[in-house]
């Protein structure tokens, strides 16, 4: 197994608050990697650090062979890291299909002049984006809603759309932040199935989730955080047995 994403002594302080404190972890290529921890443990902050949304206070982040510490988000994305957000950040006033199309930004080349001239580059790009966008929507079962405004979707659809949008980036590694939050069990199953399917196709998945059933069922490895500090990293079985984890996460 080769490492694909890892950190070294990673820290993020907000003023005096140590949101992430000296965290080392590593994700192997091709696995499903879970991050758990009580609310406020620093999981989302960790995601924001990995994707360049937040600057790092101390420490290093590596992706494949290179260092990506403090790269801006758009560069991180170009390298093949895609993400979803805990509080769903869709482009609400845009149509569902348009949302997905933005995901293809890095794979298309149209500039302003091409758009104005309506030349072949634009046509090729638009065709490609349109077709592939539809394919992605089909994948998440949202083809019938392609012309809805994103803001009018149900919670579950929004989550799925966010995943579809992230997939458009053609990531090697996908970071999903609580994909099952607010979903009913049936919807949750669908998402789990989707993520597992993606994983089979070779995308490494890193997932933050509160729903233990989801995490324990699908993850190859789990990182447990509490108050910004790493408590443990291991398989589901290992983590579940760890007394520290049980205490921190489930309460005494």
């Amino acid at each position, binding site marked *: 197994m080769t490492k694909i994403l890892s950190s070294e002594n990673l820290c993020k302080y907000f003023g005096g608050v140590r949101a992430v404190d000296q965290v080392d972890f590593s994700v192997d290529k091709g696995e499903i990697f879970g991050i758990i921890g*009580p609310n406020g*443990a620093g999981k989302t902050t960790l995601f924001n650090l990995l994707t360049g949304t937040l600057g790092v206070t101390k420490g290093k982040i590596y992706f494949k062979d290179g260092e990506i510490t403090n790269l801006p988000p758009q560069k991180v994305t170009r390298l093949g890291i895609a993400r979803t957000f805990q509080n769903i950040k869709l482009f609400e006033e845009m149509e569902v299909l348009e949302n997905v199309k933005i995901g293809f930004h890095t794979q298309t080349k149209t500039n302003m002049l091409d758009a104005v001239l309506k030349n072949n580059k634009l046509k090729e790009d638009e065709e490609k984006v349109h077709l592939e966008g539809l394919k992605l929507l089909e994948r998440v079962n949202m083809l019938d809603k392609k012309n809805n405004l994103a803001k009018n979707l149900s919670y579950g659809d929004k989550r799925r759309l966010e995943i579809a949008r992230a997939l458009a980036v053609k990531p090697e590694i996908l970071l999903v932040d609580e994909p099952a*939050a*607010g979903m009913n069990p049936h919807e949750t199953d669908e998402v789990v199935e989707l993520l597992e399917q993606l994983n089979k196709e070779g995308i490494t998945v890193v997932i933050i989730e*509160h729903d233990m*059933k989801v995490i*324990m069922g699908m993850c190859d490895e789990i990182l447990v955080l509490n108050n910004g500090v790493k408590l443990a990293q291991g398989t589901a079985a290992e983590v*579940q047995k760890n007394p520290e984890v049980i205490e921190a996460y489930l*309460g005494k």
Partner: protein
Amino acid sequence: MLKAEDLKIHYGHVEAVKGISFEVEAGEIVTIIGSNGAGKSSTLRGISNIEDKAGGKVIFQGEDITSLPAHEIVDKGICHVPEGRHIFSQLTVEENLYMGSYSKTDQTKAEYQDKLARMYDIFPRLKERRNQDGGNLSGGEQQMLAIARGLMMDPVIMMLDEPSLGLAPLLVEQIIKLIKEINEDLGTTILLVEQNARKALSIAHRGYVMETGNIIMSDRREKLINDPKLAEAYLGVG
């Protein structure tokens, strides 16, 4: 004492609370548990009317308070300690506590001082930091401040939203103990919303379990704790 009937809350097209009913009797600790996004916080926000309700009724001590403005609901004696604490970050600790007694316009200075002293008795840490800005407190201290601020209102019922959120285990323990004390010593009725089901159930008399906007279970504590369905629905693994 507090009764919600067919309460509905929508955010745009998202139905966060899909018509739930529940009841809290005087002197009880009742807990609403459930995972993130289940609609617990929205329920409380709907009761204290800082969120518009899409439907339903709220009855407090026999009176319909469904559409009273938020500050009048506070006057009735309903205290809501919101999720994420929401203390006033640029007010000092003491000013925060003062804000707790904001609605008590008829209380004398002596009564106020008295109550303040009592709060400092319960929370000695707050006394040490009385002149610091609320924003500079640690998470646990902020939670205590939020609870103390609520207690300054002399509430008939206290609605606590995730008081254990983001706190170290030891602190969670303290807070939970505190809530029990408030209930037993001051006779305040408690409606506790929690993710940490075990903790919440350890002190509650009764509990409701919410999932995606609906109440899926409700029972007395003893039964809920031992109900295998709860572990399945909520904790995932045991």
